[in-house]
C-alpha cells in the first residue's frame, strides 16, 4: 500500500497561520484597489443596452470636450486584433472571437466605449454624452433558438478564428466514444435516462475586478490586477495592444476571491491602453452590477445521461450529451464542455461502452467562463442523479451501487486518454484513492443506515438523506507548467519566489510549508513573493486545481536542489580535518545540518560560508514542473434535507463531505477550501440564479436580488479529510480547490427524492419548483 510509505512530516500537515494573514486581519493595503497613485484616471465602461445590435455610428466629440476627460476609447481608435479573454495556456483552446471594441454588440453589457477622466463623476457624465446609433438585430436568448435552422448568426465577422461552426452558432463541439453504445445498451438489463438543466450563476467574489495601471520610471507599463493569471495577462495584453512583452510588468497583489472569474483578461487591456495613451495611471473597478452583467458566469447546461447496467449492478453503458450555453463569446467554451465528461466519467470506470458528446453554443446572453468545478459541477449533477435513479431501478442501495462501480487504486479509465482539455487527454493509472473510505465515513457521519428511506415527518416537513460521489483533477497534464525559485540568505532564511497565484486559497502558505519541510526550517524562515512577472518565474496560474500539485512540485524540486547545495557546503564544514563526509547521510532539521556523529552547523553558518568565505556562490535554484498526469482528488457527499411539502422550501439540515486530497499540507486550509466550495454549491442548488428580461437584460444584478448564502443560511458542514498518499505529488499531496462544489446539487436533489419522492432536474430548487413538482405528482 502506498500509504505505508508515507514519510513523517514536521511542517507539512500542520495548521500553520497564513503567511499573509497578519496583514489581512489588520487591513493593510494589500489589494489592487488599495493603491492610490497620484493623478490616477478613473475609467468607466459604456455597456451595450442591446442584446444584439450593430453600431452604425458612434460620436464621442461631446464627451471628449467635457473638461476633465482624458480620453475616450471606441472601436474607431483601438486595435482590431481578435483574441480570447480566457487566460489559458498558449495557444489557447478558446476561439479568438473578441476584440477590444467591436462594431457589433452581442449581449446586454458588451463593451461599447470607455471614458478615462479625472474623477468618476466626470467619467459618468461623459458617458452620457457619447452618441451611439445602433441597428438592432434579432436576439438569440436560448441554446435552442441558437441552434434552429436560419437562426441569427452571432459571430458573422470574417476575422474570428477557432470557432467550430460560426454559421450554426456553435463555438465548440466534442464527440468521443469507447466500445459500442448500441450493443452496450442492448446488453443492459436496466436502463435509466435523465435530463438535467443548470442555471446562469455568477461567482460573486466579494472583491470585484480591479486593475490599476501606470508607467514606471523607465516608461514600462505596470499592471496591478486582481488576476488569477498574471503571465497570461501579460501575454494577452502585449498581443492585443501590440506592445513588446518585455515592456509590460504584471503584479498580482492579494486577490479578494476569484473562483475562476479572474482567470479572464477583462480589464487589463483597457486600463493599459489609457495609460499608454495618456502617460497617466489609470484604474478600473467593476461595480457589483458590472460584475453580474459584464464579467463572466458559469456555463448553463442541459445534460442528458443514459445509463445501462446489468442486474449485478455493474454499469455497462454510459452516454452523456451536453448542450452548453457559452453566451456571447466562446471563452472556455470547449474546455469547460470537455471537463463535463473528463472530470466525471472516469469515476465509473467499469462501464465498457461510453460516449460523451456535446456542443458549446453562442447566445446573446452574458459570457460564460471558468468557474470552480469547470463543467464537472454540471456533469456531476446529471450523472449522480442518473445513478440515484439507477439505484432505484436496480433496487440497490445508492452507496452500494457506487461502491460496486467506483474507480480504485491501480485502476484506469479510457476516458483519461480519450478526453482532455479540448483535445485528447493523457493515459493515467490512479495511484491514490480513498473514495471507498470516503463513502464509508460519510455514510456513518450522516447516519445513512438509520435515516435512509425513513421519511421522518414533522407536520408538513419531511426529512430525507441523499448522497453522491465526485472527482476533479490536479492541474492539466502536459499543458500546465509551474516554476519556483528559492534563494538563501545568510541568516538561514529563504526567499521563495513563485509564479503561482494565491487568490485567497492560502497557496503562498502551503507552498512555503513544502519548501520549509524539505529544508528543515520553520515557515517563518520563508519569505514568499508570489506573482510578479518581473520577479517571479513563470506559472500558468491559479486554475484547474493546479497550484498544490503542479506549483507544489516545482517548489519541492527547487527545495531539493537547494538542499543539495546546502549539504555540499555543510559536508565540507563538518568533515574532520580534510576528510570527506557522505552527503547523503546529512540531515536538515531545526535549521541545522546534522552529521551522523551528532556534529552540526547552522544553516546561517552554511550560507555565510557560501556567501563570504570559501568557494563563494549564491545558494539557490529554480525548478520547473510539467505534470504527466492529473491525479484526481475524490469526495463523497451526504446531506440530510427537510422539505416543507406546503411551502416547497428545502432546507439542508446537515452536510457531510469526506474528501481524499492525498496528504493535506495544511488541514484547516484544506477543510476551508471544501467548506467554502460546498457553501457555494448549496447556493447553486437552492437560491442562486441570474434572471433575464425578454430583451436579455439581467434582472437581478445585485447581492440583494441574487441570493448567495450568508452565515444564517449555511447548514452545519462537516468535512472529513480521508488520508491517502499520492506518490507523484509534492509531499504526497493532490489538489482540493474545486472538488467540493460538485457535491451539493446532486446530493441535495437525491435527498429531496428520498424525502418526498420527486426528482428535481432544474437548478436552483426553489420553493416554486419544488411545489410544482409536488403538484405534478399529486395533481389536485
Amino acid at each position, binding site marked *: 500500500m502506498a500509504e505505508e510509505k508515507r514519510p513523517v512530516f514536521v511542517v507539512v500537515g500542520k*495548521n500553520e497561520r*497564513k503567511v499573509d494573514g*497578519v496583514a489581512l486581519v489588520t487591513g493593510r493595503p494589500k489589494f489592487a484597489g488599495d493603491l492610490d497613485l497620484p493623478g490616477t484616471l478613473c475609467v468607466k465602461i459604456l455597456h451595450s443596452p442591446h442584446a444584439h445590435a450593430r453600431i452604425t455610428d458612434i460620436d464621442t466629440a461631446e464627451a471628449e470636450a467635457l473638461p476633465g476627460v482624458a480620453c475616450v476609447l471606441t472601436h474607431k481608435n483601438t486595435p482590431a486584433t481578435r483574441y480570447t479573454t480566457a487566460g489559458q495556456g498558449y495557444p489557447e483552446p478558446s476561439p479568438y472571437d473578441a476584440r477590444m471594441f467591436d462594431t457589433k454588440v452581442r449581449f446586454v453589457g458588451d463593451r461599447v466605449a470607455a471614458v478615462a477622466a479625472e474623477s468618476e463623476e466626470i467619467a459618468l457624465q461623459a458617458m452620457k454624452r457619447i452618441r451611439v446609433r445602433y441597428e438592432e438585430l434579432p436576439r438569440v436568448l436560448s441554446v435552442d433558438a441558437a441552434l434552429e435552422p436560419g437562426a441569427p448568426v452571432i459571430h458573422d465577422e470574417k476575422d474570428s478564428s477557432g470557432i467550430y461552426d460560426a454559421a450554426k452558432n456553435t463555438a465548440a463541439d466534442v464527440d468521443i466514444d469507447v466500445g459500442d453504445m448500441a450493443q452496450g445498451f442492448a446488453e443492459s438489463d436496466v436502463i435509466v435516462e435523465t435530463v438535467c438543466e443548470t442555471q446562469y450563476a455568477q461567482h460573486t467574489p466579494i472583491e470585484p475586478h480591479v486593475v490599476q495601471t501606470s508607467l514606471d520610471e523607465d516608461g514600462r507599463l505596470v499592471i496591478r490586477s486582481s488576476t488569477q493569471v498574471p503571465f497570461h495577462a501579460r501575454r494577452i495584453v502585449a498581443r492585443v495592444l501590440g506592445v513588446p512583452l518585455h515592456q509590460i510588468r504584471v503584479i498580482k497583489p492579494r486577490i479578494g*476571491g476569484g473562483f475562476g472569474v479572474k482567470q479572464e483578461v477583462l480589464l487589463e487591456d483597457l486600463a493599459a491602453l489609457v495609460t499608454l495613451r495618456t502617460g497617466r495611471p489609470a484604474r478600473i473597478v467593476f461595480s*457589483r452590477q458590472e460584475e453580474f452583467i459584464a464579467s463572466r458566469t458559469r456555463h448553463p447546461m442541459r445534460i442528458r445521461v443514459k445509463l445501462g447496467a446489468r442486474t449485478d449492478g455493474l454499469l455497462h453503458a454510459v452516454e452523456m450529451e451536453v448542450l452548453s450555453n457559452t453566451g456571447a463569446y466562446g471563452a472556455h467554451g470547449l474546455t469547460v464542455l470537455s471537463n463535463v465528461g473528463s472530470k466525471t466519467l472516469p469515476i465509473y470506470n467499469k462501464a465498457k461502452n461510453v460516449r460523451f458528446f456535446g456542443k458549446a453554443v453562442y447566445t446573446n446572453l452574458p459570457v460564460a467562463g471558468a468557474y470552480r468545478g469547470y463543467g464537472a459541477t454540471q456533469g456531476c449533477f446529471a450523472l449522480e442523479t442518473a445513478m440515484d435513479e439507477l439505484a432505484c431501478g436496480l433496487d440497490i442501495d445508492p452507496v452500494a451501487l457506487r461502491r460496486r462501480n467506483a474507480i480504485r487504486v491501480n485502476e484506469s479509465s479510457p476516458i483519461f486518454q480519450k478526453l482532455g482539455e479540448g483535445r485528447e487527454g493523457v493515459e493515467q493509472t490512479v495511484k491514490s484513492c480513498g473514495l471507498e473510505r470516503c463513502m464509508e465515513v460519510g455514510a456513518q457521519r450522516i447516519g445513512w443506515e438509520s435515516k435512509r428511506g425513513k421519511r421522518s415527518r414533522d407536520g408538513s416537513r419531511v426529512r430525507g438523506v441523499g448522497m453522491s460521489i465526485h472527482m476533479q483533477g490536479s492541474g492539466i497534464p502536459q499543458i500546465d507548467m509551474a516554476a519556483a525559485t528559492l534563494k538563501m540568505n545568510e541568516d538561514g532564511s529563504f526567499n521563495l519566489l513563485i509564479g503561482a497565484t494565491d487568490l485567497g486559497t492560502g497557496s503562498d502558505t502551503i507552498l512555503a510549508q513544502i519548501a520549509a519541510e524539505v529544508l528543515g526550517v520553520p515557515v517563518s524562515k520563508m519569505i514568499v513573493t508570489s506573482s510578479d512577472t518581473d520577479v517571479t518565474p513563470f506559472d500558468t496560474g491559479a486554475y484547474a486545481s493546479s497550484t498544490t500539485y503542479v506549483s507544489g512540485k516545482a517548489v519541492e524540486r527547487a527545495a531539493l536542489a537547494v538542499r543539495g547545495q546546502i549539504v555540499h557546503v555543510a559536508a565540507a564544514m563538518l568533515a574532520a580535518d580534510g576528510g570527506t563526509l557522505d552527503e547523503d547521510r546529512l540531515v536538515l532539521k531545526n535549521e541545522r545540518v546534522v552529521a551522523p556523529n551528532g556534529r552540526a552547523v547552522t544553516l546561517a553558518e552554511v550560507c555565510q560560508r557560501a556567501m563570504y568565505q570559501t568557494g563563494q556562490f549564491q545558494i539557490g535554484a529554480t525548478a520547473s514542473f510539467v505534470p504527466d498526469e492529473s491525479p484526481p482528488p475524490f469526495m463523497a457527499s451526504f446531506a440530510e434535507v427537510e422539505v416543507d411539502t406546503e411551502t416547497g422550501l428545502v432546507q439542508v439540515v446537515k452536510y457531510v463531505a469526506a474528501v481524499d486530497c492525498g496528504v493535506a499540507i495544511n488541514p484547516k486550509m484544506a477543510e476551508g477550501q471544501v*467548506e*467554502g466550495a460546498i457553501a457555494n454549491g448549496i447556493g447553486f442548488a437552492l437560491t442562486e440564479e441570474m434572471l433575464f428580461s425578454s430583451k436579455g437584460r439581467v434582472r437581478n444584478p445585485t447581492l440583494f436580488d441574487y441570493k448567495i448564502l450568508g452565515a444564517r443560511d*449555511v447548514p452545519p458542514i462537516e468535512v472529513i479529510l480521508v488520508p491517502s498518499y499520492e506518490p507523484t505529488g509534492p509531499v504526497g499531496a493532490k489538489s482540493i480547490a474545486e472538488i467540493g462544489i460538485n457535491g451539493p446539487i446532486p446530493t441535495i436533489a437525491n435527498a429531496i427524492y428520498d424525502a418526498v419522492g420527486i426528482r428535481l432536474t432544474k437548478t436552483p430548487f426553489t420553493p416554486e419548483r419544488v411545489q410544482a413538482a409536488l403538484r405534478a405528482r399529486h395533481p389536485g
Partner: protein
Amino acid sequence: MRITLAVNGTRCTFDAHPGETLLELLRREGYVGVKKGCGAGDCGACTVLLDGRAVNSCLVLAGKADGSDVLTIEGLSQGGALHPLQEAFLDEGAVQCGYCTPGMILAALDLLTHHPDPSEEEVREGISGNLCRCTGYTKELRAIQVAAAKMREARHG
C-alpha cells in the same frame, strides 16, 4: 463640508464631498482596510463601528457621521498586539482571501461587546450581514467563539 471624526481614537477634521459616503471618505483618507464589495449595504465588507455599533459605511453619508467615533480595522490592533478576534481568525483558518475579514471582525466585535457569551445562533445572526464567498462561515463561527472565550477570560482573569 468640514466634519470632525474620531477615527481609531484620533480626532481629525475632514472635508467631506457633497454626497460622499463614510466608506468613500475613509478610503480616500487612507483607511483602506474598509473594503467596498457592493456599495449597496448588501455585503458588509465596508463594516466599521460608528459610536460602537457596526454599520455599513457605504450607507452612511460622511456628513451624517460628523462628531462620531469611528473604529476601522486599522484601529483594532494598536500597539502591535493583535486583538483576540484577529488572533482567532488566524488560528482557526477563518481567513481565506481576507477581503471580507475586516468587516467580519468588526461585526463580531460589536456582537461580543454586547453579547460576551453568544450562542452559535447569535453568532450567525451577528455576522449575517457580512457575506463571505470563500469560507462557508464554518471557520469564522468557530473563531468568534474562541475569541469570545478569550475575551471573557481576560475580563474575569
